């Protein structure tokens, strides 16, 4: 919602670095003194192994922030007037101090919305959560049926999420979120998701699949087909105001209509990510050293990273658009998602891999033809049982057999075999 739109100011004699008036989206490109919303992943530990996990979560990292360090981050966010944080992981609720950190945040004027697969949302816990006004919950579900969901999130995960939603509804929790990552397999289920959300008194939230983390390995199989992107866009337009998107489909606005939201890449400008070990990245989809701005444990803490990091300063300068600059839709789609380009090996100054004009497909073809390497995140906490094959020569095959030239080892003094030293012909 925007209140009191001002006409653009005439150019000042000395042009300021940041205009004081204009379209909000243009102002936000210069960044804010503190993030509007911030994603904070509390742990890399997770009971699931979703194939598209943005943070390649699974196992806890021994360097994760302690309870006291987490509370110090909350104190800083309160001072910076960050109104709320989106807590995720991993599965944040498996941290033994999770509820303590949440209570600390909400009693220090930092609202919390946390994402969970529902594993710890018991009836008792749901009743406690429903009592806290400063708390919002987001249940992740990537299929309106167990078959479609469990294919991506693993066996049993559909039932877990549904049980959690039942418990929240029964506890009287209103308007929690049902959060869906849109894939090739669930875009035909959009109406079913909507009725599922309605049935549990939840609000539907749809977000974009990113080729980040383990998503890099599953993106080719899961990302929506071009005709499905149109279907999704039309559905979002038809359900304007009823569904949240976390501003994640702004690349689709090149279809000709702006979707609700800021329609801007907020990375390092209005959003960022704090990961479980305190590393600060430009956005939740960009866990890679290229987008690492600093760590909350550094002197000056999070606020210095946000205000002074060289990376964030750079992201807040106007972007040229590169190959996209001459496109008539650049003003609405802004070249799409930085992380989606990066993790599919496309140049940042150019089309999004899912550019609605098909320019991304063409760029991907060209990248494959030139055999350009795709960057991979070095941070990987996947369960060892689910780890993707590593590159390199792979395991060495062994065959047990006898060497013909050495039939038996030399006889030693302890040899009790009555046939010691006997060599069959």
């Amino acid at each position, binding site marked *: 919602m*925007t209140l009191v739109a001002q006409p653009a100011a005439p150019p000042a004699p000395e042009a300021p670095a940041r205009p*004081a008036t204009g379209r909000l989206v243009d102002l936000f490109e210069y960044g*804010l003194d503190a993030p*509007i919303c911030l994603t904070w992943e509390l742990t890399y530990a997770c009971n699931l192994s979703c194939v598209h996990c943005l943070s390649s979560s699974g196992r806890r990292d021994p360097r994760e922030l302690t309870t006291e360090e987490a509370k110090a981050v909350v104190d800083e966010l309160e001072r910076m007037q960050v109104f709320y944080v989106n807590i995720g992981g991993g599965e944040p609720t498996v941290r033994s101090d999770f509820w303590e950190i949440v209570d600390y945040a909400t009693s220090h004027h930092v609202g919390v919305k946390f994402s969970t697969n529902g594993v710890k949302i018991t009836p008792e816990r749901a009743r406690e959560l429903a009592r806290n006004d400063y708390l919002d919950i987001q249940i992740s579900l990537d299929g309106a049926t167990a078959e479609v969901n469990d294919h991506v999130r693993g066996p049993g995960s559909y039932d877990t999420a549904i049980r959690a939603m039942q418990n929240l509804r029964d506890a009287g929790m209103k308007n929690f979120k049902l959060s869906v990552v849109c894939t090739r397999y669930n875009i035909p289920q959009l109406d079913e998701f909507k009725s599922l959300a309605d049935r549990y008194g939840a609000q539907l939230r749809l977000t974009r699949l990113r080729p980040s983390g383990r998503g890099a390995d599953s993106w080719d199989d899961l990302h929506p087909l071009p005709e499905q992107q149109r279907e999704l866009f039309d559905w979002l337009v038809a359900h304007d105001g009823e569904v949240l998107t976390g501003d994640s489909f702004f690349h689709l606005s090149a279809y000709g209509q702006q979707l609700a939201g800021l329609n801007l890449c907020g990375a390092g400008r209005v959003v960022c990510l704090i990961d479980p070990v305190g590393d600060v990245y430009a956005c939740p989809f960009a866990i890679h050293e290229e987008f690492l701005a600093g760590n909350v444990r550094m002197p000056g803490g999070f606020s210095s990273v946000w205000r002074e990091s060289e990376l964030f300063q750079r992201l807040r300068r106007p972007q040229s658009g590169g190959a996209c600059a001459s496109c008539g839709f650049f003003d609405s789609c802004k070249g799409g998602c930085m992380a989606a380009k990066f993790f599919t090996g496309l140049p940042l100054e150019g089309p999004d891999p899912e550019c609605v004009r098909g320019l991304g497909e063409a760029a991907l073809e060209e990248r494959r033809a030139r055999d350009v390497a795709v960057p991979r995140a070095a941070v990987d906490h996947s369960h060892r049982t689910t780890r993707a094959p590593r590159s390199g020569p792979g395991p060495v095959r062994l065959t047990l057999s006898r060497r013909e030239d050495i039939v038996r080892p030399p006889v030693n003094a302890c040899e009790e075999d009555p046939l010691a030293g006997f060599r069959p012909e």
Partner: protein
Amino acid sequence: MPAIDLDRAWKLHPQVSVRPEPFGALVYHFGTRTLSFLKDRTLLAVVDSLADHPSARAACAAAGVTEPELPRYAQALATLARSSMLVERS
């Protein structure tokens, strides 16, 4: 759009926080979990001082809102009131 009664006394909802920014301010309601933008420093001054004035009209005048500008500010205040960011003072 329903109008706001400029001659009544208003204040920010107790669960609302305001964060000044170069362009105006961010306004967040912890109860409804909604975020709004005040895209204007004058509007911020009006909103900030509502509780100190006997009416919204007086708050606008004190912040330097001129008569021709008043309808635009009234509309912005009405939007804030509709989303429970502002409440009437008794």
